Structure formats: C-alpha cells, structure tokens
C-alpha cells in the first residue's frame, strides 16, 4: 500500500482532516493560552482561512474516487 500513489479520494480525506485539525488547533491557541490579549490576530485569521480552504479542497477531491492523485 505504501508503494502505491495516493488516490484523489485519499488525498481529499487527508486535506479535509488536516484542514479541520489545523482550524481547531489555531482556535485552541486562544483557548489554551487564556492570557493572550487581542483575540484572534491577523496572522491567525489568515491561517484559519487557509485551513478552511484546505478542508474545502479536500471535500471536492473525495468524489474523485480512485483516480491517482
């Protein structure tokens, strides 16, 4: 299995999972580090946007099934 190329579906799932975990992780920075001031900063907003984009990209790839990525 590890010697085969990923499929579009597998890549889509990886991107979706990565995007969701990344999104939650960025949010968690403020939850865990409660002493931080200023809420979600500009760099965080950009990163959150990228994570949403990553997850959406993943979602659109999942229906591509077993096409090699």
């Amino acid at each position, binding site marked *: 299995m*590890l*010697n085969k*190329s*990923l499929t579009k579906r597998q890549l889509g799932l990886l991107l979706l999972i990565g995007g969701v975990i990344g999104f939650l992780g960025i949010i968690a920075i403020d939850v865990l580090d409660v002493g931080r001031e200023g809420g979600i900063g*500009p760099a965080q907003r950009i990163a959150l946007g990228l994570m949403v984009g990553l997850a959406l990209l993943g979602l*659109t790839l999942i229906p591509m099934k077993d096409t090699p*990525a």
Partner: protein
Amino acid sequence: MIQAASRTETAPSALITVNRVLMAAALVILIFYFIVYAVYAANLIQFPFDYDQGEGFELVDTILFSQGKWPYLDTNVYPFYSSNYPPLFHIIAAPFVWIFGPAYWYGRLLGFLGTLVTAWAIGYAVYRDGQHRWIAILSGLAFLASNTVYHIGPLFRQHMTMVMFEMLAVLVLAHANEIADKQKRRRAFIAGIVFIIAAGYTKQLAYATAIAALAFLFIRNPRRGIISALILVLVGGAIFMGINVATNGQWWLQTVAANVNDFFPDQTTGLFRLWFGLHGFLLIPAVLYVIYEFYFDRLSIYSLWFIAATANSILSGKWGAGDSYFATAIAAMCVLSGLFAARTLTGRWHFAPNYLTRFLIHPFRRFAPVIVSAGFLLIPLLYIGYGRAVLHMPTTGAFQPIAQILGIQANAQNGFYDSAGRIAGGYADIGHLTTQADIDGGNTIVDLVKSTDKPVLSEEAAFNLLADKDVITNPTQLLNLANNESYDGSALISMIENQEFGLIVLRAQFYPPAILRAIGDAYTHDEEVPMNGFSYIILRPK
C-alpha cells in the same frame, strides 16, 4: 512532440503566421528585459559600496567564513556583530575572499549567475514536460523579467541562490519516481534532497519548498516520501545541531529566535496586490493549471511548490521582509504558466471523466475549435501583456530614446522607471543604475572614516572595510534581537556614551531605539553625504 506537430498542422496557416509574429514580439520584449537586467547587473558588479541595505554584512559573513570563523556571535561583546542568515551562500563566496580580498562584485556575480541557472532550469522544466521550445525560452526569460527578480538578482544577497537550489530540487524530483533504474532513481532522490538542504542552509525560507517536495513524494509513493523526509530531517537536523554546538547556541538565537518579527498584515496585502498587478498575466494561467492538475490530471511537484511558495509569501508582511519573499512563487509561476501555454499550443489537454467534467467541460466541447484557435492568439498575448505589466528600465543614457518612444519618465531614483510604482510597503526601493557621483559620495565617506584614529560605528559595512577598520555591529540584527527581548546593548551604549567612536555613519537608522537614543545624546549631526539616492548622516562627538 508528435501532438505538437499535429496541432500546428491542423491550425489555419494564417493563424499560425499571426501566432508566430506575436510569439516573436513576446520574445523581443522579454529579451529586452534580459538586456536591461544584464546592464543593471554589470553596473552593480562594478559598484564598490552597499547598494541595498545589508549587503555589506553579507560580505562580512563571507570574510568571517573565509577566516574559518562563524558569524553567529555574541552581540553583547565587541565588535557586537552577528548574522541572522544560514551559511551556505557565504561559504560558496568565501574562496573569492582568499583570492580577491573583501569586495562586493563576486557576491553580486554569484547572485546574478544563480538567477540565470534558475531561468535555465525553468526553461528546461517547461520544455521537458511541455515540448514547446519557444514557450520554454519565454518561461525562463519571464522569470528574469519580473520586477522582483530584476532588482534583487544581482545583489550580494543569498535569496536568489536559495531560489536556484529550490528550482533545481523540484526539477530533479519532478520525475524521480518514474525512473526505472533503481540506482539512477536513488541518485535523483539524493540529489533532490541535497538541493533542498542546500536551499535551506542558504536561507530559512526554503522550508516551504521542503514541505512541498516531501508532500509530492508522499503522494506519489508514501514509502519513498517517508524515507526522504527521515533523511532530510536527520541530515538537516545533524547540521543544525552541529552548528548550534559549535557556536554555543548563538546559531539558534541569531537565525531562529531573533527572526520572529512583527507581522504587518497591510504590508502583506499590499505586496500580494502588487504581485498580482505585475504578474497577473502569468499568474492566472498558473492557477488554472494547478486547478486542472487537482481535478483532471495528476498533481505535479510544480503545483505543490507553487501553492507552498505562495502561502509562504504571506510572511512578506514581517518586519524586514519584502517582495523578495515572492521570488520562489514567481519561479513556480513561470513553470506552471509555461506548461499551461505549451499544453494549449500543442493541444495536449485531456480531462479525466468525473463529476466536474459534466458541468465544466462537456457543455463547452462544441466550442473546442474556437477555444483552440483563440489559444494561438491568447498565449503570446499573455506574455506580451506580462511584458507590459512588468515594465522597468533606466530612462537615461542609451535607454533614453526607448523611454521617449514608450512615453515613460523616471518614477524612481537615478532615472529609473518601475511599473511597480512603489505603492506597497516592503517593496525594495532599488533597481536604478549607480553613477560616478555615487562612487564619489562613497569615497568621501571612506575618507572621513579614515580620518579618525578611533573606531567608527557605521550602519553599512563597506566604509569600514575599505578604510581597513573593524566592522562594528549589524544594526538590523541588533534590532531583531531587541524586538525579541534578546539584546542587552549596555556595552555598545557605554562605548557611545563615552564617545569612543570617532565618527558615526547613519542611513536608515535601523539600530534599536536605545542605541539611537544614546547616539542622539552623545553625538551631533556634522554633515550629510549623498550616495545612491540616500543621505548618509555623519555624526561626531558633541
């Protein structure tokens, strides 16, 4: 190639003629920019002082390496100097110090040659995958025609050498998985990893290319991707740890901890807008090609590289960063737009059937002949449009008649026109040619530095180097450290307060505020010397 021939054979002859005329026009425009670039490089190579802020400290790093010393030093100990850049570029330049002594020309020549290698590699990548010689040439020239590449290419800076190693890495790895011979495949993987490590040890920003390359290798063959990542981490990590031990931890402090700078979102936004304004004609086909690969073909390393490099360009909003952070994305853009153009001209688009082809492709199949014909006109027009968008050239001397024909006037220093227009913060205010008056101004400052027996605190290294005096401090690095609360400064402040410097030379005043306050208290403005469009402030003890 067969498909290229068949596409040309099936197109109407009039259309082919128009295509060739437009392609020739695009080629002439981009060759013109190459000439402008070569003239600029030749001019800078002969200029003996700092042209861009900080070049002299790259030279100091090179001198230190040529003496077998690390430049990652304790900034609280005289001469308060340290570097925040990895070593490879300076190590490559070090042999020149042994032969020619301290000078700027060889660092600038290396930077310039690095961009030529990158342009060649872009052209080769496009030709290998696109099978269209003209487009391959245009793609390489388009890289050199970019305003960003133009103005930082021939500097004594490591950035474009990093881009060269990055480009060579993706070029080598792009088809490594398809090499049937095991030994050759292994050599290709090793070469790719070596180039990635070389890029990373030229400048830290190459980490994005490493991520893209490893992601590509993982997608194509997870086992090889994991092994490559392990090798990269082990070798890269061992070098990192080795340097850190050898420098008593200064390597970590100076190149990593001190590089966490303030982020200005407006600067990033401005630079992205500028990037699109200048490169939009090639960015759009590059983005379309990435989308095409995601949904209708296999993902190439170039697409992943483009995505990673573009995302990494967000860091251009950091203090001390700028448009140079887009150079890697520009290289990737040139490859992808070239592949888009070559596919269009050779008719090699194919769309794997999936849920998207039903909505996005099938309804337009009947327009295919019109779209193909339009492509013959559109592709060269994209390169011509790009040529218009990136317009930059001297407006004086031999270029004056051309500037008059084009109806442009200098909008930057020393008779230089730049379509970027300096609208975004972080865009380097350079690109003009230096003059004899600039060299005279520099020599005046060197004479002033020589005239005192005491050490001189100069914001640029060239004056002290040419006066054979110690180079004291690297102001931007002191500021990096101060911004990260890792700088003491008391020893340097004490020297300033005691007026131990015979002279202080300021330009951009990039020292930490505490140092500038001490200078203001103990030294007084004596005179200003113009050089290279800037006013160098000479201060003497009060």
